[in-house]
């Protein structure tokens, strides 16, 4: 449905997007992940024909964004980072305007607007001025605007930013309910969002593609190592934290021991294993043999957050020698 090849976007002095290629199939939800300033918004703006690429091509439903922008625009619904709303308009008036702007036949507009308002739960504020709406409602009106003309492709730039937790869950459910009929690309720097909604993840950092895979694969690939949380009873100041740490570090297969907390007579450690090692049994044995009281021992597993940090940090390490070379 979406095909991007060798896409580069250069501004006057900076390269915002550097030679990115990816494909998205029909009906997929793809998460576009990266720290702020990674080039997510720029890539989305190229896909929506807002910005032309410096080099490379991007096609949506077989239409090139440079050669056939009208056809691309008809098939895309776009929610920018700040929803494009006119504060002086009423919600219903605004949606009718957008409907006509997107080329819906005049007689179909009211019905379509009604439908979308119900779906996005903005029905109860239909006659209110947009300028007087809360952030959550504005975001949903923005989303309503994007799905109004029933586009094949939905491009959502940080759809849950600035919402409260309840609204985030509602928006997420709404997005999930849109999957199937629509191909969705959503960008975010919040990883849990990707874990919840997306089938595939595209990670970019500093304008470069770092990884592109399914969420499950990505987690598996990087979960060769195990993380374990360990809690000891340390009432009365014994055992000594440094002693515990040292002894835990000697356990076979342990790569790192971090002390997390030592409050209320408890010691909490987080321990990471080397690739492919099972360490829980050995840890338990060490603790018991040392005569300490074991409160809890559980596997925490690396979250997508850790994976993301690993990936982007690894990418930075790769580039570091280069910059040093330049300085020398």
């Amino acid at each position: 449905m979406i095909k991007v090849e060798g896409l580069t976007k250069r501004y006057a002095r900076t390269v915002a997007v550097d030679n990115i290629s990816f494909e998205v199939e029909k009906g997929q939800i793809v998460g576009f992940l990266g720290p702020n300033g990674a080039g997510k918004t720029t890539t989305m703006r190229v896909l929506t024909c807002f910005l032309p690429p410096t080099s490379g091509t991007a096609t949506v439903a077989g239409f090139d964004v440079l050669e056939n922008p009208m056809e691309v625009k008809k098939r895309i619904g776009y929610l920018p980072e700040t929803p494009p709303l006119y504060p002086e308009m009423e919600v219903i008036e605004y949606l009718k305007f957008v409907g006509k702007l997107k080329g819906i036949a005049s007689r179909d507009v009211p019905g379509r607007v009604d439908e979308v308002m119900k779906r996005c739960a903005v029905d109860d504020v239909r006659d209110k001025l947009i300028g007087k709406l809360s952030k959550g409602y504005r975001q949903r009106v923005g989303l309503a605007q994007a799905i109004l003309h029933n586009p094949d492709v939905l491009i959502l730039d940080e759809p849950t930013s600035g919402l409260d937790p309840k609204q985030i869950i509602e928006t997420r459910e709404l997005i999930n309910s849109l999957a199937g009929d629509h191909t969705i690309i959503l960008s975010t720097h919040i990883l849990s969002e990707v874990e919840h909604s997306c089938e595939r993840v595209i990670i970019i950092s500093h304008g470069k593609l770092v990884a592109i895979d399914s969420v499950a694969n990505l987690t598996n690939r990087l979960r060769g190592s195990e993380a374990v949380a360990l809690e000891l009873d340390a009432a009365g100041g014994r055992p000594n934290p440094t002693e515990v740490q040292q002894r835990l570090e000697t356990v076979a297969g342990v790569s790192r021991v971090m002390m997390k907390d030592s409050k209320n007579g408890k010691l909490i450690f987080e321990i990471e294993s080397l690739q492919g090692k099972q360490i829980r049994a050995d840890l338990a044995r060490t603790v018991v043999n040392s005569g300490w009281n074991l409160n809890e021992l559980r596997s925490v597993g690396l979250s997508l957050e850790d994976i993301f940090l690993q990936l982007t940090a690894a990418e930075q390490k790769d580039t570091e020698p280069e910059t040093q070379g330049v300085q020398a």
Partner: protein
Amino acid sequence: MRSVILICRKELNAYFTSPIAYMLMAFFALIFGFVLFNATRDFIRFSFQMQAQGGGAPMSINDQIITPLLGFASTITLFLVPMITMRLFAEEKRSGTIELLLTSPVTDLEIILGKWLGAMLLFLCILAMSMINVALLFAWGKPDLKPVLVAYLGLILQGGCLLAIGAFISTTTKNQIIAGGVTFFVCLMLWLLNWFTANDTGAVYQVINYLSIVTHFDNFSKGVVESKDVIFYLSMIFFALFSTSRAMESLRWRS
């Protein structure tokens, strides 16, 4: 065409749901009414004097009231235009709604024409305020209708021209104050250039004088439609709107 009308209606709505349209109409009506009152009072006083003394040149409402009045209206236009056009694109750029317009299946040209037409219609509403006063003159006097219509045609053409220039300036910035300020400065310069160059005959002065938009109104205010003035205004409108579309294009490539 559907999109042009759609965007034009949206612009008009924005003007009339905010105080700006009413403010400009009231502002114009007040000043125009005041000037008309003065002109009429002088006219009446003068005609009484003539009656008392007997004789003198025949008097005409057209030449002594309407012509100077509409000439004055053309000057006020210079002050109104920046307030109409400053928001056209600058506001959309600031609030991000430009992204909605540029990612919708409408062409740049349709957006520009829609916005310019919206500004034009508001300008016509403002001009219409002066018709109340002119209608009073027709009710109690017998002025000639044709020169009045010609002068209004001139006002509309000049207004369209300045609005197109204002629209262009509004595309170049996110800041409404800057858009308004620069447009105001340009309008003011056009007016001043006309003053500076009016009595000079050198080639450079003549060119500047020709380009100064205000000079082309003179013939209209005398009730004369010259094709070169009409062509000048139409080509200026075309040129300014063309520049606007170029500016929008460059917006995509640069930002």
